[in-house]
Each structure stands twice: as C-alpha cells, then as structure tokens.
C-alpha cells in the first residue's frame, strides 16, 4: 500500500461564524457577465449575439466537446457584449454580458417522460451542471459510457473541507430531500454498487435527516453507506477520498472515475434534482461569504455571472483600511481577485476576504513541518529548491506531479515561504512539457 493515513490540518475556530449561517438575499444591480469557461474545462461556443433578447433559462452557449457545458442565461435581459476577457479564474475566455430587464419570463426544460438511464443522462448533459471542486469540469463528463462499465462507488460529499466554506453542508442541512433524490439519480445513471455519503460538519443532524428522507423515498438502504470524515483539511480531494473510502490508489495524473469511483457534492446533486424534477437548468450555486473582513458571514444563492460588488453591497466590510483583496474558491486554494467587477461563476462555492497581512519570505530553516502535513507525502522544501533552480527533471522524480495544490505547506511554513505557489507553477510547467 502506497500510504496508510491521510495527513492534513484542522483550522480551529474557522467555522465559528458559519455554524448558524442563514441564507441571505442580494440585490443585483450590475450587468451579469457569464464566462464560457470554468476551470480546466474547454470553452463553450456562444449562441447569442449582441442586442439579442434572452429569457431566464434560455441557452446562450453550447458545448464543443466532451469537456464543455451548456450555459444558460441567469436572468431576462439583453445581451450587451460578447467578447474575450480575463475571467475570475485568471484565464482568457469569452464572456457574455447581459443587462437584466424587469421581465420575469423564464424558459425551462420539458418534463422527462420516463426516467430511463439515457433520458437522465441526456438531462444531465443539457442541464449545464458543473463540478464545484478540482478541475471544475461539467458533471456529465464522468458518466460518459466508457467509465460506466467500471462503476463501483459513488461518493457524495456533504461538507467542504476548507475551514471557511460551508456551502455543501448548508445544502445538505436545508435541502436533504433534494440531495437524497439527486444522489439516487446519479446512482441510476452510473450503475454504481453503492452510494457513500461523507459527512464532516454537524454529522448527526445531517445523517439523521438524510436517513429519514431516504426512508420516505423508499430507497434501497443496503446500497447506502455513511462515512464520517476526520476533521482535517484537505479531504475533499477526489483521489484522497477514493483512497480512504475504497482503498484504491489512483495516481493524481489520472481521473478517479476511470477506476470506478465517482465523486459528487451536495451542490451537483441539487443541480441534477432541479434539472429532473423541477426542469430548471443550472443557473446558480450556493456561495459562502466569510472571512474576517466581513461584519457578518453567510450563505447566498448566487446567479451565474453576478458581479462581486453586489455581494459587497450586502455584506459590509468591517474595517476599510485593512481590506486588501478577496478571493474565490476558499481560503486555502482560492484565486485572489483584482477588482470588484470580478464575476462569480457557478463553478465556485465561496467568496472569502481576509485582513491585510504582509509576510516576508525567510530562507528555509529545514524544520520539516511541510513534509509532515503534505497529504500526498511530498517534500515541499526539496521541490521548492528544485523550482528555484528550475531543475524540473529531479522535481519530476520526486513526484512534483502528485501535488494537489492544497496550500498546506505554505500554511504551516514558519518562514512564510510561498511553497505551494512555486510548486504548482512548476507542476504546470512539467505537465505542459516545458523545460528550462
């Protein structure tokens, strides 16, 4: 066995403000900017042009290959611009800007006549659901026919392991029935032997609620397992999750679904439920707003492409002097944003902002704390030296490609070195085949 237990950290007190988070309403004032590319997925093809009128839920972009999704208009309005911009993920992509109108007209799918496997898979493809973790590929990509033959385990995450994010847990708590039905739909299309619900926050409450709902639906409880995750970050990573639940070691470069393990979250279960039972496309996702610069923390149902300034008009900043920036995608592995104009895509689940603290990098003191926490058992300080020397060959030998960009090495480093950043840059260079 390559390794026995999963390492990580638990950030104490990070969820204090989020335990009793209530859903907050935001007033959208600015135009919606819908990006056509999420994370590592490829870019969808725009179907609308400037000046066109769109309804809420009408399709505005279609996939070009197996790793892009259908994208739907989040509101009624007019298309103002279709052009290339830098999106909030830091990539250049086409962004469709929609000016909202007062009309409430909406366009939804036709109901499914019979819940056969092919009908459900078709609905999953057209609903435009996107993973909110990892590579952020469209949800249907996992269930393409080649993978289904090997299907064994479906894992549903009902938690967010980043200490400052609470979205999935919030959904599991407040939409238990929807999550249960959505998970059973995924089970139906994937042919898996069992569903494993993994819980982390408020375990007893979520487990008992979900069990009740599953009994009410009349689900086959022999196929369902609950798994309590230990209190450590980053346990939402697919490969680590597959390891602790199914004991399968899958190299980080490969996808877990090629080895029969499918991972879904409460958000994607809710998306699938909405698409099948309510005939709604995926146009929104639950965002956690947290961090110590905000006066209050909370959870918001954010429409695709909402601008960050709408969030900031609802959630006030405590001390404007100390505010420096905000980030999408969690405190540990998120992406820092450069303006309030940044759009919030459905592939993210959090907007966090922390008080301005400046750390200066010191030389490595060889304390070994990074090696002790690395969940994939790398040696970050050695990789850091190779990254500085641009010695990619040796870095590859030491497993640089197994880095999962969790950011724990930077988190624990007493010399405040930016290990995670340099290692992930080097990893990207290695993957692209660049050598110096």
């Amino acid at each position: 066995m390559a390794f026995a237990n999963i390492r990580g950290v638990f950030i104490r007190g990070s969820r204090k403000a989020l335990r009793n988070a209530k859903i907050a309403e935001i007033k959208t004032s600015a135009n919606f900017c819908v990006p056509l590319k999420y994370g590592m997925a490829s870019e969808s093809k725009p179907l609308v042009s400037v000046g066109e009128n769109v309804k809420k839920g009408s399709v505005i972009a279609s996939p070009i290959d197996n790793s892009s999704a259908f994208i739907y208009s989040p509101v009624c309005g007019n298309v103002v611009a279709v052009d290339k911009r830098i999106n909030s993920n830091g990539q250049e992509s086409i962004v469709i800007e929609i000016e909202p109108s007062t009309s409430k007209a909406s366009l939804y799918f036709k109901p499914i006549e019979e819940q056969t496997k092919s009908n459900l898979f078709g609905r999953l493809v057209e609903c435009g659901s996107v993973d909110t973790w990892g590579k952020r590929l469209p949800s249907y990509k996992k269930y393409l026919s080649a993978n289904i033959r090997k299907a064994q385990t479906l894992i549903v995450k009902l938690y967010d392991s980043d200490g400052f994010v609470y979205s999935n847990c919030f959904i599991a708590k407040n939409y238990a029935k929807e999550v249960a039905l959505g998970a059973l739909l995924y089970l139906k299309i994937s042919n898996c032997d069992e569903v494993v619900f993994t819980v982390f926050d408020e375990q007893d409450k979520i487990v008992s609620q979900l069990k009740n709902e599953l009994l009410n639906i009349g689900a086959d409880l022999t196929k369902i397992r609950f798994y309590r995750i230990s209190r450590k970050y980053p346990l939402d990573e697919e490969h680590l999750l597959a390891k602790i639940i199914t004991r399968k070691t899958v190299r980080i470069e490969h996808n877990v679904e090629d080895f029969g393990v499918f991972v879904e979250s409460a958000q994607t279960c809710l998306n699938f439920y909405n698409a099948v039972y309510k005939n709604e496309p995926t146009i929104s996702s639950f965002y956690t707003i947290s961090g110590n610069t905000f006066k209050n923390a909370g959870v918001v149902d954010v429409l695709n492409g909402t601008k960050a300034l709408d969030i900031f008009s609802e959630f006030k900043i405590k001390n404007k002097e100390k505010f420096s920036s905000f980030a999408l995608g969690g405190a540990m592995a998120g992406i820092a944003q450069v303006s309030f104009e940044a759009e919030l895509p459905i592939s993210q689940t959090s907007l966090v902002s922390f008080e301005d603290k400046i750390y200066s990098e010191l030389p490595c003191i060889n304390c070994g704390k990074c090696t002790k926490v690395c969940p994939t058992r790398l040696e970050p300080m050695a990789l850091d030296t190779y990254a500085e020397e641009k010695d990619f060959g040796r870095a590859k030998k030491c497993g640089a490609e197994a880095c999962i960009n969790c950011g724990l090495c930077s988190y624990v480093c007493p010399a405040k070195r930016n290990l995670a950043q340099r290692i992930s840059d080097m990893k990207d260079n290695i993957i692209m085949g660049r050598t110096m």
Partner: protein
Amino acid sequence: MRLFKVGPSPFVKKNNSVKILLEHMILVLLALCVVGAVFCGYRVLILLLISLVSAFVFEFLFNLVVLDKKGLDDDLSSIVTAIMFTLISGANTPLYMPVIAMFVAIIIVKMLFGGFAKNIFNPAGSGAVVSISLFGAVASTWLTAGISGKFAENPLNNIATGNFANFEIYDFLFGKAGTIVGAVCLIAVLAGGLYLIIMGVIDFKIPLMALLSFAAVAFLLNGFDFNIMLCYLIGSPVIFVSFFMLTDYTTSPNSFLGQLIYCLIFGISAYFLVKYNVLYSGSVLLALIFANAFTPLLDRVIRPRYFGEGVKYGQ
C-alpha cells in the same frame, strides 16, 4: 481609488514564525543560564556577556567586510549561538575562550556556509569543539562548573577511569555536580525540554531516540548494569545536548528513518567518545558534529513514498 493587494493562496497562515520559534528557544536557554548562574556563580553571566558581544561583533564585521552590508542580521540565530556556547562551557572557562569559539561558530561555521539556516554543523557545538581541541592542555581544568564538593572535577573523568562509586543521581538533578553550565541542574534541563516540546518547537522523537540509543549501548557494553548506564546518562551532558542541540532544525534530518539513523550515529559515537574521554565534555559535542555531518546525505537519500509512487496508473 484603492488598489487591491493580491497575494498567492493560502490567504490564512498558521500563527507561527521563525522568530516565535527562536524566541521560545532563547527564553528556555536564558532560564538555564540563570539556573547555571545560581549554582555555579556570577562568572556564568560574564561568559554570557562576552559570548553575546563577540557574536555580534563578528557578525557585524563579516556583514561589513564580506557582504558589504551595515548592521546585524535581523534573525535571532547569533543570540542562540552565543547563549548555547555559554551553556556548553564550564564556569571556569578562561574569558578569551568565547571569543575564539564565536569566531569559529559565526564566521567559519555559519557565515561562510551561507548564513542563517545554511550551516551543516551546529555553530555553538563546533565552536566549542574547536576551542577545546586547540586548548586541550587547559581544557580538563576549565570545563568544570566551579562547585566545591566531591564532583569539583569533571564527572567525565570518573566515567573514563571507571570510578562509579561516588555517583548519586540527586547531585546531578539539583546542581551539586561539576559539569557544563547547562547540564548542572538536570531538573531544569528536563523542564526546558518539556516546555519546548509542548510549545511545538522541538519534536520529542529526536531526544527520545538519541537518549534511548545512548542508554542502550551503555547498558549492553557494561554487563547489563543499570547503575553504570545511569551514570553515563547523567554524568555526561548527553541529556542537554539531545534536547537542545540535536533537535536543531537545520542540522537534523526530516524523515523519521533519517532521524532514527541520525540518533543512532549520535548515541553510539557519543558513548565511545565519552568512555575514552576524547575531548572532556566536548566528547558529546564531537558526537553531535559527527551526526550533523550525515544530515545532508540522510535528507537526500531517504525520502517518503509519495501518493501513487510505484503505482502505474491506479490499483
């Protein structure tokens, strides 16, 4: 318009820093200095002052002459080195000795290897070893703590001659024995070590493994005599060295297996160097330097198996 300051993730960091770690270390070492001064007299404080001043002067001069930079480095490592040297020398040490030791420690062992955290050997330890080697003729007399009584002389001499009759554990626990300043009161050493372990500065594994390997060798090679083993443990400064010097981050390996080998090298070599009294109380320090020399090799050769290593695709 206010500009955004954008940094790399993670946006939260653990509340620790090199400075905090060194401050904890300095706190404990200063406390041990005070304990040493109580038992061995005010001369300890004079030695401490000379060590500190000479460490600062050498650092300043090196920065000025070689690095073309005015002022001292803002890390606290030279303070640790200076206090550490005071603790590993005896109270009767001649007052010119810290100057020589600090020259070796700061200039040769630390600065010429690239400065803070780039050194291969423990600076204070190698400074002491070099100065003891240079002045071997006087070393046997000055490496005692200046305490009158049955252990006015270094107990290491008793160990070397096989005279274990006078040893009583009480003397060593409460500062009645003439050994190095730091190890004069073993209760204080153990309390300091425990404090550092609780504050997360040092790992308990290194001192534990080092002491166990030293004790095991002493136990095996002395006819399974528990008392002789205890005399070796308390009579030599091995407890002090394994808590405060062996655990130095820069000069110790990171992997568990590496640490085990490092501690075995230290324990076995320390036993033989103490038994034949090679360098008086420098014997244990010489073993430390010897173990330090293996650290780069151990760190390079022994590395953890990363996730998925040896697996072709997945299994």
